[in-house]
């Protein structure tokens, strides 16, 4: 019986000769990631278990990106806990202050994750790295503690659903729209405990930024991981970045899939997920008149330079509607600098945007863009649960940077074609 990429990567991190979906295995971890919210609990558990040294200081990444710049005293304490641990342990990949970026944008950008890696992160959007042909999955803080201590973790080998995407994407349709459409089709538990493998001609033509957006939201369909085969686009992305040699895995032609789902992407228009589930998706032409108070462009889903370029293209010589707070969050310092060098920040400021430092804050309702009761935000983020970005009676509409930019200008959910 053949194997999928996901099965092959998991197997390569064990001593087993064969593995099958459903099997519980112990596997070696290449990178274990934590942030200022999840790492403090992991550090507490690590110490309580008598932990003195992490298994490998080069294989732990600690990124203070959630409630930073420190939003209050408690948040500052959490960051302090992680910082002291990182210094004590000599953690190689420790990022804060002017070096910090949103973790799932930062790690690929720096080449810390490479194809064939097994990555666990105490952050559900760790699945982002599947875009690079790595097995990457979100875990909890205790898992992170165990991984930091032993370099291994238990996994249930997932079944894989294969998505075959074909057709040429229409103007303004991106990887974000594709993944929203897929989640809308299969539901928020449509891939529960499973791997989502993205294939097909549309995927082959998709730039890395779009693949990262897609893999990022695999968790929103309940998936364990999302994964893309390594191709010329991946290899090009890794050039000059990959911090170590990497291994490429390919799904066997006789690999067994739980399901194969075909998607005709040529017919898609930009998509929007309405409150309060990422699966509550419809095409922008069916959005109706939804007035917005805020437009947030950023996050681990869509805060990359490619996303900012699209937003700038739409916002150039235009202004956000007077009642709309437009917030742009470059996801990493490098992206910030690139946006500055390319003149994008001028375009955003001319559009009366607030430019935020790299942070996860607004996306999860932490700080830097909280919604009041009854307010609505269009956001290029990944979750629109009740209270996600602020008051329990506020609303979040998930969309691409193109739709978020157009909506900011028109003051309501809108397609760039309406400008």
């Amino acid at each position, binding site marked *: 019986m053949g194997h999928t990429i996901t099965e092959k990567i998991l197997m390569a991190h064990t001593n087993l000769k064969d593995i099958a979906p459903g099997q519980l295995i112990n596997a070696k971890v290449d990178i274990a990631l934590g942030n200022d919210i999840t790492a403090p*609990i992991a550090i507490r558990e690590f110490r309580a*278990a*008598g932990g003195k040294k992490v298994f490998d200081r080069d294989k732990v990444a600690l990124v203070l990106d959630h409630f930073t710049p420190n939003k209050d005293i408690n948040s500052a304490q959490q960051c302090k806990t992680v910082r002291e641990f990182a210094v004590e342990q000599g953690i190689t990949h420790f990022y804060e202050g002017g070096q910090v970026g949103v973790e799932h944008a930062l790690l690929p950008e720096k080449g810390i994750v490479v194809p064939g890696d097994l990555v666990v992160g105490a952050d559900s959007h760790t699945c982002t790295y599947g875009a690079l042909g790595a097995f990457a999955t979100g875990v*909890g803080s205790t898992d992170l503690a165990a991984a930091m201590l032993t370099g291994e973790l238990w996994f249930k080998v997932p079944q894989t659903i294969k998505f075959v995407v074909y057709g040429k994407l229409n103007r303004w349709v991106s990887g974000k729209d594709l993944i929203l459409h897929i989640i809308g089709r299969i539901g928020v*538990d449509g891939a529960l405990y499973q791997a989502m493998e993205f294939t097909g001609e549309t995927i082959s033509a998709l730039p890395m930024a779009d693949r990262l957006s897609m893999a990022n939201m695999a968790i929103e369909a309940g998936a364990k991981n999302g994964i893309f085969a390594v191709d010329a686009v991946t290899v090009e992305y890794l050039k000059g970045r990959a911090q170590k040699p990497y291994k490429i895995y390919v799904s066997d032609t006789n690999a067994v899939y739980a399901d194969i789902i075909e998607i005709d992407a040529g017919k898609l228009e930009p998509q929007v997920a309405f409150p309060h589930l990422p699966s509550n998706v419809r095409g922008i032409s069916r959005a109706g008149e939804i007035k917005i108070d805020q437009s947030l462009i950023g996050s681990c889903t869509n805060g990359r330079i490619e996303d900012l370029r699209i937003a700038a293209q739409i916002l150039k010589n235009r202004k956000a509607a007077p009642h709309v707070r437009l917030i742009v969050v470059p996801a990493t310092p490098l992206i910030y600098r690139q946006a500055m060098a390319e003149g994008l920040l001028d375009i955003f400021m001319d559009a009366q945007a607030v430019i935020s430092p790299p942070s996860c804050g607004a996306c999860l309702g932490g700080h830097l863009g909280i919604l009041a009761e009854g307010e609505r935000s269009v956001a290029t983020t990944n979750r629109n649960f009740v209270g996600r970005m602020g008051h*329990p009676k506020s609303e979040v509409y998930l969309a691409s940077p193109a739709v978020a930019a157009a909506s900011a200008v028109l003051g309501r959910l809108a397609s760039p074609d309406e400008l």
Partner: protein
Amino acid sequence: MIFKGKVWTFGDNIDTDAIIPARYLNTSDPAELAKHCMEDADADFMKKMKPGDIILGGENFGCGSSREHAPIAIKAAGVSCVVAKSFARIFFRNAFNMGLPIFESKDLADAVDEGKEIVIDSVRGVITLAGSDRTFPISPIPPFMEQLLADGGLMKHIAKKK
């Protein structure tokens, strides 16, 4: 183990933002987190519930963020266990790793009303409605995960193996 308590019912897709909103994640103190348990799903939950009560969810309970603060808040609130039709995978592993008992039952949620008492016999693998002889099977737990629970969570399990 036997768990006996009143059930508080919640629907499908109860996400971890509803279990413990991110605005409270500037601490990991269990007692602090417990004060806000289930707040965005039912703002009065902590006023109504009593220690030993049981949370009864629908499909995909605990979806969303990986925050272990969610099972920590539930456990520290005094909820004895969670029963749901299905669990989101990170919540599922977090619960076993940190020692919050959870049980999967496809039919219970549709057969019991809020406020009713249930009895869970985790050894026999059945749930009974108090004052009735109706029983509901619990989906079996793999032996490894039973061991995790018996050892008191993942870190104690690792310590024992050493």
